[in-house]
């Protein structure tokens, strides 16, 4: 893989910033659905209300795979400016595209690694599709916030290096009706570890299913 020089610089910067700041707190965010079950693949974003000494972090190259005619992960949160490689791990070719306003692009049919990553240089929600397989849907959540991620299978997202202060926490998932995609709450971070939880108003819709059976040909 060939990276342009400024990306290598970003990669190094990213490594240098791994060491936590002098006074940093841990934040644990737990997201559950209406029945209290852990909600996974939910994007969590922590935005400071006042200027804090946020690390001038920029994420290294991110990857969104294509496995069994579906995007993996279904939802990927990235920092604005992050290049994303849409690797294809299927035996069939894909044509990845998006017409979302923050980033319009089309990747011609390919197997394996595409030639170039796609740089997402504007914040917003980017819906990803495949021009051959209409069942394939993925989302990129592109944010300017320095702290973000997605919940794991346990419905938890954890961050270790938050400077104390006032924050707005936001969760986002496309598996709810659009007017409920976003939920926010304010939280005050002290030196100790802090917990926050979100309870979504309903059960999440199922994620689009991968097609594991290679015999299936109707797209």
């Amino acid at each position, binding site marked *: 893989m060939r990276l342009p020089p400024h990306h290598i610089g970003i990669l190094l910067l990213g490594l240098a910033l791994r060491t936590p700041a002098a006074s940093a707190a841990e934040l644990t965010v737990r997201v559950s659905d209406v029945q209290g079950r852990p909600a996974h693949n939910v994007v969590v974003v922590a935005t400071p209300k006042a200027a804090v000494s946020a690390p001038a972090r920029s994420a290294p190259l991110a990857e969104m795979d294509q496995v069994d005619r579906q995007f993996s992960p279904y939802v990927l949160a990235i920092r604005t400016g992050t290049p994303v490689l849409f690797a294809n791990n299927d035996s*069939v070719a894909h044509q990845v595209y998006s*017409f979302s306003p923050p980033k319009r692009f089309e990747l011609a049919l*390919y197997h394996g690694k595409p030639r170039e990553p796609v740089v997402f240089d504007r914040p917003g929600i980017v819906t990803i599709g495949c021009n051959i397989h209409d069942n394939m849907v993925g989302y990129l959540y592109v944010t300017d916030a320095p702290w973000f991620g997605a919940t794991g299978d346990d419905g938890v997202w954890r961050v270790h290096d938050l400077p104390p202060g006032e924050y707005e926490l936001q969760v986002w998932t496309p598996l709810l009706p659009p007017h409920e995609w976003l939920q926010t709450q304010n939280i005050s971070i002290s030196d100790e570890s802090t917990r926050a939880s979100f309870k979504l108003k309903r059960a999440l819709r199922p994620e689009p*299913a991968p097609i594991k059976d290679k015999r299936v040909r109707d797209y």
Partner: protein
Amino acid sequence: MRLSCLALTVSMWTFGQSALAHEITAQIDLRAVVVDSPLDSFTEGGTGQLRFGGDDDGLRLGAVTIDAAGEIVDTVRYGVTARATGDGDRNPIDLTEAYLEWRPYPSSPLRWKTRVGAFYAPISLENRAVGWDSLYSISASAINTWMGEELRTIGLETSLTALGATAGRNFDVSIVASAYGWNDPAGILLFQRGWGIHDRQTALFGELPRPLVQDPSIPNIEFFDEVDGRYGYYAGVETKISSRHVLRALHYDNRGDTAEVEAREPTWLTRFDSFGARIELPLEITAIAQYMQGDTAVGASADGRGFIIVDLESWFVLLSRQHGRHRYTARYDRMNTETVRGARFFDSHQDADAWTAAYLFSFNDHWQLAAEAIRLSGSLRQRAEIGLSPNATERLLQLAARYSF
């Protein structure tokens, strides 16, 4: 027909261009068959509605399928399927589908797709595998068996889909419309033999023996022919929910000119409405139901509706469960035809139902074993024309070994 030849030529040419963008699959399907039936199969000119009849016990060729798909330019793809069924059709191997598909990249939530060539109309919710085979059993339901026998879109189809993902909807809605020719004989087999249940697809240049021979000089039916110079159409809607559940409705009208009888096959006016739903349930259980209702008519009449009109109706319910490498399927089919005009000249009347149970075992990506039992029982009045009892029960047990690469 010329279009499909063109598609084949174009795709053969592109094979050499790049290995990357082409996917070629070949499949051999060998059968061990045990039949309990008083009838000969329609494939031998009988009035049996299964693929194998009373004296067909033994080893048989299921099918050899060769399927190729790939890109010609970035947004234009081709699909070609050729099939051999080993039952003495005119060509030992023949095309079942050959088309070009144009899929421009969506630049808004509206996605547009256009196919030209010879292909299946979007009706079947079972025939999802390579070579338009059913994913759930060996033999398709009566409705989709008929699709494979007599219906092929030879022409143009275009569809427009409102993609829901960007707007936060978990469903896509599509409308589809098509204009086609070379489908004037469609209806003749249903008229003579009634609905059937099997996996044999009529090839584009294929023929079948006539169940009821009127003119011994033309013992075979030729299916995909243009007689009246009128194009037919279909129009439909589809909703896909969470990329899982599918709902479909389609209206089909081949606009046949029933006055056009001076040809090898007279023109049949065939019209129907088709509805279908495929729902994915927990525990990897799939439920499919389809319903079809319409009529087919032949011969000149003052009102143009046809001298003989036969109503056709069929529905089925299928339940299938995938359990690791095993799949279990059960299906019930209901089949009816009824002559509503001109019955005193020819009375086509079928009243039958069928149970199908199938077990499929995918050994690996290459080998699959399939076992299927069918019991088709009911009456077909036409059998009386050739001195047979209208009532019959056909039972078939078949074991298929399929190797694909």
